[in-house]
């Protein structure tokens, strides 16, 4: 089922939690809502589920306007940020209840319900725990019960609020891959909230980046990572180095070094900042061209196949981060304290006055 979110706004008192949100989600897509704490992710998800009413705007599932339809009738699966399992019921009943309370004519038989529940418990690897109570489970197990409960009612839309928030890194990684497979097998449309950018980039078809109740950017993980359209997104998705300088006729000048910024060919002496990802910084031992910046290597961390360098610029005394492959690092034979020349391979220039943050 496709989801159309159209100019949704929501205020709590005088505080604007969501401001004119538009998102179109295609059937079968897995979309991540990514943003810092308080950016309105949960609020948006709750409005889609009907747990909160929008002040303005409409929501369509397929072609049906469901803005004024109650949660119960929306047939969405919702996995809550804090699980919200029914504490007085066993794992089995938690999962079964959505089916048990259906009106008689659409309710499966007792045996069918049991089969369906065990099928789901197998899927979330909790068959052996059917008779336990939520308090007798670990965080990750509760999370999976919550997921099985949401899936039991065969939703067309699955909404997950930080589903892996409380889990450790390894389990998170396993579970999110597993969620991706599950999403594909069930052929549903899913939206999941996270503030972990790696998680969003890893499993989502598209990423919606939110900030202060507004959407900053929507795009595939590659798009938003490689081509952020604002300083905020650059900053939010991974590490970034800043080159502050003056923009003049398609070049960013900083001290006696300059870099091309062709998209600003008619800029006249404006203050600007170049954003460069650590892996877009090249390191040379000799000064081959005019646009290298001299710097000293302060620290070297080898993390698996990637080498992180911390450098200090000799001209501005600012720190820079660079990433290179282990092969390249071995070829260059870099050492702490060594003087090198640093050059941005790719950079994106923003003029701060266009983006008041």
């Amino acid at each position, binding site marked *: 089922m496709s989801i159309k979110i159209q100019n949704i706004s929501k205020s709590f008192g005088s505080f604007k939690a969501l401001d004119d949100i538009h998102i179109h989600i295609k059937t079968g897509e897995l979309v991540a809502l990514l943003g810092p704490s308080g950016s309105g992710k949960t609020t948006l998800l709750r409005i889609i589920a*009907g747990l909160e009413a929008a002040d303005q705007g409409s929501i369509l599932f397929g072609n049906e306007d469901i803005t004024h339809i109650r949660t*119960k009738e929306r047939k969405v699966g919702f996995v809550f940020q804090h699980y919200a399992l029914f504490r007085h019921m066993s794992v089995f009943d938690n999962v079964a209840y959505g089916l048990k309370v259906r009106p008689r004519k659409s309710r499966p038989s007792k045996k069918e319900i049991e089969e369906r529940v065990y099928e789901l418990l197998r899927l979330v690897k909790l068959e052996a725990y059917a008779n336990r109570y939520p308090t007798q489970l670990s965080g990750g197990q509760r999370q999976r019960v919550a997921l099985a409960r949401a899936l039991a009612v065969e939703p067309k839309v699955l909404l997950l609020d930080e589903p892996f928030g409380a889990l450790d890194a390894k389990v998170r990684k396993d579970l999110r891959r597993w969620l991706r497979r599950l999403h594909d097998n069930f052929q549903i449309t899913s939206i999941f909230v996270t503030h972990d950018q790696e998680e969003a980039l890893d499993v989502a078809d598209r990423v919606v980046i939110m900030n202060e109740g507004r959407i900053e950017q929507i795009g595939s993980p590659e798009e938003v990572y490689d081509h952020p359209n604002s300083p905020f997104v650059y900053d939010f998705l991974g590490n970034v180095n800043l080159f502050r300088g003056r923009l003049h006729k398609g070049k960013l000048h900083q001290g006696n070094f300059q870099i091309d910024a062709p998209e600003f060919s008619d800029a006249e002496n404006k203050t600007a900042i170049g954003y460069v990802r650590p892996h877009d910084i090249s390191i040379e031992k000799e000064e081959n061209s005019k646009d290298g910046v001299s710097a000293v290597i302060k620290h070297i961390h080898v993390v698996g196949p990637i080498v992180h360098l911390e450098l200090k610029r000799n001209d501005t005394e600012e720190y820079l981060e660079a990433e290179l492959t282990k092969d390249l690092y071995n070829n260059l034979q870099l050492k702490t304290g060594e003087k090198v020349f640093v050059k941005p391979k790719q950079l994106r220039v923003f003029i701060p006055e266009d983006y008041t943050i």
Partner: protein
Amino acid sequence: MAKMYLNRMIEDPDRTSRLIEIAQSSLQPLLKGAIYYTVPLTLISFFIGLVLAILTALARISSIKPLQLIAGVYVSAIRGTPLLVQLFIIFYGLPTIGIVIDPLPSAIIGFSLNVGAYASEIIRAAILSIPKGQWEAAYSIGMTYSQALKRIILPQASRVSIPPLSNTFISLVKDTSLASLILVTEMFRKAQEIASTNYEFLLLYTEAAIIYWVICFFLSIIQGKIEARLDRYVSR
């Protein structure tokens, strides 16, 4: 005074045996009063009161203003006036406008209204103590309001409200003695009737007190059992 009473008992063996005889012979009528009136009056009033309390609690937390108002006025009026006055209004007052109700039904009405008001506050607090997420989770898997209430919220709220509701119940057992004043021949009225023939007030009223105490003692044992049972699965 107390000393004189005891001295007389010890010095006068005849009187002692007379007292024992009165105690024994009055035990049966007193227990009859308890079994035929005190206990049923308590159980019926508590049951009706509990239903009333749940409805009142739901009305007070509903978003419908008139319901909130009616429930609020009811609770305030009952809690703000003496139980005895309420009973008198029902039994002695209403006949003035042509509504005549027998003693026992009058007592049941009075006690039910009373339990309804007090217990509604307990139930309201218990329902509000259940996290909002439990309602939302129930709605999200397709439950209606009444399904969510019956299957998700009330079972959890009941554990929270058992101790204060037991208090209400035990108070009710004792308050039924007030029904004696509107001519219900419950245990305490029986004690009064017997005492008025033989003037052994201390003996009979003490005997009644002991029977009340025994009933309440067993009730608190039952309360403990229920709590342990509910705790099994709502432990956090």
